[in-house]
């Protein structure tokens, strides 16, 4: 007897399309990783296995400083964005619906909707004015810009987690003599933790990956890893770029795996 439930897996050609989709998704990345180990100068002609390009990238001072800068920005921006997003999520879910709530959602998620290039130009002009007025030239601008576009990525998983949380748990904590702060510290926060970690990791990866806004906002000598790689592309392309990309990929995979294991245990 046929199962009455609809299942996409029984549509003719499902397997073929699925395999094709996976090939399109992963073949380029696979090729990139393979050529990172190329012994030759080309990113298209295979000349044998070597770790030469990894060593070269590792020894490259420009790569090192760009990596460090990327990490500083990503860690700071994701930490600030996650804290702000946590407060925003608490503020928008832990109270009865209020006038203008939808407006607030739109405001928080604005970076998801406004084209990045518009934000980039706007920030370039805005920060230009501030730079003129204060003379400050540091990394703060980049951290601030990254924080802004990271907030919605941190906000969405945290809010989802909060909305799924049983409100009576907080009532129970208050009933058991916990002050508002203790309720937050011992009940809300631990239960929210997987959401916060998910938000922070998403924000971190988004920040690490950003090119457009960084390219516009950065001052001279403030290259992050992605903008450095973009600069390299304009000159001779060597598998060094592949090696750096592979490093980034590995970092992302490690982060995501860690997150997966962490949340699975909690669940």
């Amino acid at each position, binding site marked *: 007897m046929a199962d009455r439930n609809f299942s996409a897996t029984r549509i003719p050609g499902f397997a073929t399309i699925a395999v094709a989709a996976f090939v399109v998704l992963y073949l380029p990345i696979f090729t990139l990783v393979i050529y990172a180990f190329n012994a030759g100068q080309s990113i298209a002609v295979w000349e044998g296995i070597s770790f030469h390009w990894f060593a070269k990238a590792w020894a490259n001072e420009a790569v090192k400083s760009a990596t460090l800068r990327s990490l500083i920005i990503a860690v700071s921006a994701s930490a600030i964005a996650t804290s702000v997003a946590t407060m925003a999520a608490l503020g928008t879910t832990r109270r009865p619906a209020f006038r203008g709530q939808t407006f607030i959602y739109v405001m928080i998620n604005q970076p998801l909707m406004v084209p990045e290039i518009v934000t980039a130009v706007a920030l370039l002009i805005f920060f230009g004015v501030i730079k003129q007025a204060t003379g400050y030239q540091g990394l703060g601008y980049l951290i601030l810009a990254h924080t802004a576009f990271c907030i919605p990525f941190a906000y969405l998983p945290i809010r989802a987690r909060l909305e799924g949380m*049983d409100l*009576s*748990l907080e*009532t*129970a*904590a*208050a*009933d*058991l*003599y*916990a*002050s508002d702060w*203790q309720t937050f510290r*011992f*009940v809300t926060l*631990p*239960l929210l933790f997987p959401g916060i970690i998910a938000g922070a990791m998403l924000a971190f990866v988004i920040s690490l990956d950003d090119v457009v806004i960084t390219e516009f906002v950065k001052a001279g000598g403030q290259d992050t890893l992605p903008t450095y790689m973009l600069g390299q592309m304009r000159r001779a392309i060597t598998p060094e770029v592949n090696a750096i990309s592979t490093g980034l990929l590995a970092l992302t995979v490690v982060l995501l795996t860690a997150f997966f294991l962490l949340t699975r245990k*909690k669940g």
Partner: protein
Amino acid sequence: MTEYAIEARNAVKAFGQGDVAVRALDDVSIQIRKGEFFTLLGPSGCGKTTLLRLIAGFETPTSGQILLDGQDITALPPNRRPVNTVFQSYALFPHLTVAQNVAFGLQMLGRPRAEVDRTVERMLALVKLEPMAGRKTSQLSGGQQQRVALARALAPTPKVLLLDEPLSALDLKLRKEMQVELKRLQTETGITFVFVTHDQEEALTMSDRIGVMSAGKLQQVGAPREIYTTPVNRFVASFIGETNFLPAVLGATGAVLGSGDVLALSTGGKTGPATLAVRPEQVRLVPAGEPGSLPATITGWVYFGTDTHVHLALRDGTEVVARLQSGATGDSALTKGEAVGLRFTDGALQILGD
């Protein structure tokens, strides 16, 4: 010191504003004695849970006062009231173990660790869950979770324990067990229990006193037997147990029923239209035409094993149900359409105000 653990004085709780405001609690005053098992009984939406939440401090009254041990606690937040709650959904902390759940209240009160450990051990023994101390609450059955919720609420030795329909999620057998268990815990700890339920049987079997609520108002407060045998109005009579209602006009020496039959009855000086109430087990069948009996016709019956509910009609069609115990005379020889006589046990008829 007062003899009351909890007092509500003219408590009103309105939700919404202006024309759409709903009075969930409409001028309720109640006194709950120290050490008693008090049940708030009523259908859903009658205001019983609202009253409980006012006592716990989860809601503030629109007007009126809540007193604990004679002290006005109306303005105190829940975490500063020596009152604990067992929630309908249990609301156990899923990220903590059974023992950590039970310890939570004591830790928030800042009790020394040794005392916390000792109390947790004692509480787990009280609810017979010692082997489960290290488990996560999600690994427990419904009945076990219920007992953790009880232990958690009892651990800080509250002055009053509030229970919000705690048994409604359990199956029948477990519910019966927990009823006995709750009564035992209340006796052993001596703590005042305020228990909310819509289940009249639960209320009758467990309570020292019952407060029956309807439409935001307290209808009657009394011991279970009192509530059952002398309900003050039609709502109480119909909500608790089954009741026959007979419309009648009261005179000096008795009542005239709608069927024209006259019942000799002491009316206590009341006259005019009224409703008489009589429980089915207080209705007896006698041979038709027996002096002093009401003429009626058998319209049908339902067999329940321990007893049989016989449906009868008076001459004007007024329905009356009689409950015959199995083995009693006549319960096995009923005939539809048979003319019989009805008699009521002495003192069984109640005159109800509406």
